[in-house]
């Protein structure tokens, strides 16, 4: 078997089947389950990296299920009717983010989750969520996108309601499930409208056919509504603090990556599917929602006393920066391509920076909860005496998230500030204000939880949890010190794929 040619589908199948096999291994022995998970996680991460290397070196990878040869998406004289995976630089970039977050999450979960609290279930759902995210990132088929949207929704809701022994987890899961279901129905209805009009589901084929009719625009509205909800844009974000606050820490970082994958799907719809009908009004809508998101979430974080909810609002505010960057790009790219591209690069770069920084913060909160037994800032204090590494990681994550140089958040935020200044200085001012608010919030949280006299004797944080946090901390430093390398080799091709690469994407799938 030619592994390289089949890597895109294997990257989805391995975690998908691996997830369902996990409980079976657990029935035999917990050690076998852990070994299986290591195998599945290592295999999936390696396949994702292999796909990314192929995409970044050889161009878009197309894989057609059921065809005689995977690259034959279209039969001679026909159009694509089979399920097609189409992986360009942006899809590969999202796959790498998902792989990083999932591997770190599983290392952390090894000692974070207790066996008698349903560890096997959490690991199974985590692996399933990873498979769904890769499916959403790699698919070139609109209906397939909806299927993986649902796979991620089901797995995410299971993880949010994981702590069944408290009422808050299942309540948060129920609210998220309602929102995901309504949003998913919007997406499904949009796909049905497009299928009814054009008789096709392939994304590239539809992108070539779409003419901007009223039905097309209604479908676009429905897709925007569903995907903005899942990305957690204000005012559709309200499920997110509930969900992030209640899910176990290793699952929360997967949920954050899941919102980013939804954002990716939104960008794919706007740039690839509807790219031929580029509309500044829609760009302004994305900009407005992005600005609202970063500001409202930062303000809400100011008054939070629960460390988990505080970081959750911080996570929502970061979605605003990504929306702002890409929204500015969408608005100005036709008139000022150079600045538009920088804005899109800033938005995409911020996805990686956010995954690393907010991931580290959520893992640190999980460590605090496990060590001290609670997350209430009113009761915490002096943890830095005993949890020195965790305190350092929390501080590093906080400064990175607030965009303090030379850490990673600064570089991407600077790109967003400067490019949004071109559209309106008010946007830059509001984005900087939100960063200042976040800095104040996280300094307050750090002081409250880690500084001051010793108030209690926390349990030591297990080494695997520290290792997982250490990996993300190193990521923050590396991305912060060498942003030019990351932008040149990873972000720039991803941004180009979104804007300039539309024709390449269509040609790669349709062959003409």
């Amino acid at each position, binding site marked *: 078997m030619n592994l390289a040619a089949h890597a895109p589908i294997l990257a989805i199948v391995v975690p998908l089947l691996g997830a369902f096999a996990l409980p079976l291994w657990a029935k035999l022995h917990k050690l076998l389950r852990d070994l299986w998970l290591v195998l599945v996680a290592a295999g999936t991460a390696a396949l994702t990296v292999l796909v990314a290397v192929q995409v970044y070196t050889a161009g878009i990878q197309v894989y057609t299920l059921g065809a005689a040869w995977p690259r034959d998406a279209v039969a001679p004289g026909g159009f694509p009717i089979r399920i097609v995976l189409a992986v360009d630089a942006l899809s590969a970039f999202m796959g790498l983010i998902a792989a990083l977050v999932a591997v770190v999450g599983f290392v952390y979960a090894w000692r974070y989750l207790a066996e008698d609290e349903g560890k096997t279930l959490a690991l199974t759902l985590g692996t399933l969520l990873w498979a769904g995210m890769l499916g959403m990132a790699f698919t070139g088929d609109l209906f397939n996108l909806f299927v993986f949207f649902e796979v991620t929704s089901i797995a995410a809701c299971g993880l949010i309601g994981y702590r069944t022994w408290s009422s808050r987890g299942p309540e948060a899961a129920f609210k998220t499930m309602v929102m995901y279901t309504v949003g998913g129905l919007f997406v499904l209805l949009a796909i049905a409208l497009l299928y009814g009009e054009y008789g096709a589901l392939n994304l590239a084929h539809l992108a070539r056919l779409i003419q901007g009719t009223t039905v097309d625009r*209604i479908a676009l509205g429905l897709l925007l509504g569903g995907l903005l909800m899942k990305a957690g844009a204000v005012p559709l974000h309200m499920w997110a603090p509930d969900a992030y606050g209640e899910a176990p820490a290793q699952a929360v970082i997967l949920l954050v990556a899941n919102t980013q994958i939804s954002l990716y799907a939104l960008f794919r719809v706007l740039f690839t599917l509807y790219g031929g009908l580029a509309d500044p009004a829609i760009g302004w809508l994305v900009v407005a929602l992005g600005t609202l998101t970063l500001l409202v979430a930062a303000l809400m974080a100011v*008054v939070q006393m629960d460390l988990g909810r505080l970081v959750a609002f911080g996570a929502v505010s970061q979605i605003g920066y990504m929306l702002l960057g890409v929204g500015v790009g969408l608005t100005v790219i036709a008139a000022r391509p150079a600045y538009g591209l920088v804005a899109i690069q800033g938005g995409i770069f911020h996805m990686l920076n956010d995954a690393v920084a907010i991931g580290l913060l959520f893992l640190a909160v999980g460590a605090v909860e496990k060590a001290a037994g609670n997350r209430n800032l009113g009761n915490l204090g002096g943890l830095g005496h005993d949890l020195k590494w965790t305190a350092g990681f929390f501080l590093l994550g906080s400064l990175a998230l607030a965009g303090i140089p030379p850490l990673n958040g600064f570089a991407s935020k600077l790109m967003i500030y400067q490019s949004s200044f071109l559209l309106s200085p008010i946007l830059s001012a509001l984005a900087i204000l939100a960063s200042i608010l976040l800095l104040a919030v996280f300094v307050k949280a750090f002081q409250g939880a880690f500084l001051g006299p010793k108030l209690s004797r926390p349990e030591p944080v297990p080494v695997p949890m520290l290792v997982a946090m250490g990996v993300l901390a190193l990521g923050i430093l590396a991305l912060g010190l060498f942003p030019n390398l990351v932008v040149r080799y990873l972000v720039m091709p991803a941004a180009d794929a979104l804007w300039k690469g539309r024709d390449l994407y269509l040609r790669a799938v349709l062959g003409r």
Partner: protein
Amino acid sequence: MTLLTGHGFWNPLLWLAAAAGVTVLALVVWARGRRDYTRGTDGELPFLSGEKMEGAHVGGGHLYWGFVEGLRPYVERLRLFHTGLVNDYVGWLVVILAVVFLIVLVGG
């Protein structure tokens, strides 16, 4: 090592060099301080608004109190929207969908 950011550039190594320079300057100023400082006296105790009790902790709810109170009127308005009721969550989804439709159908 330089990242172009549209209007300007960002080089973290230059920033680190500048930060190292400022740190050296601060150390020089510190080294020129008083030599007759005595350790272990009352001067080392923290002063928390007249609070003399040892072990007093400024908790998370008290730090930046004035800053948070100043923002509270705005935040309280936002808090009214965060009811925790799933009906309201779906309601906002409908509202946003209406706005999106308005933009893609009328504005587009």
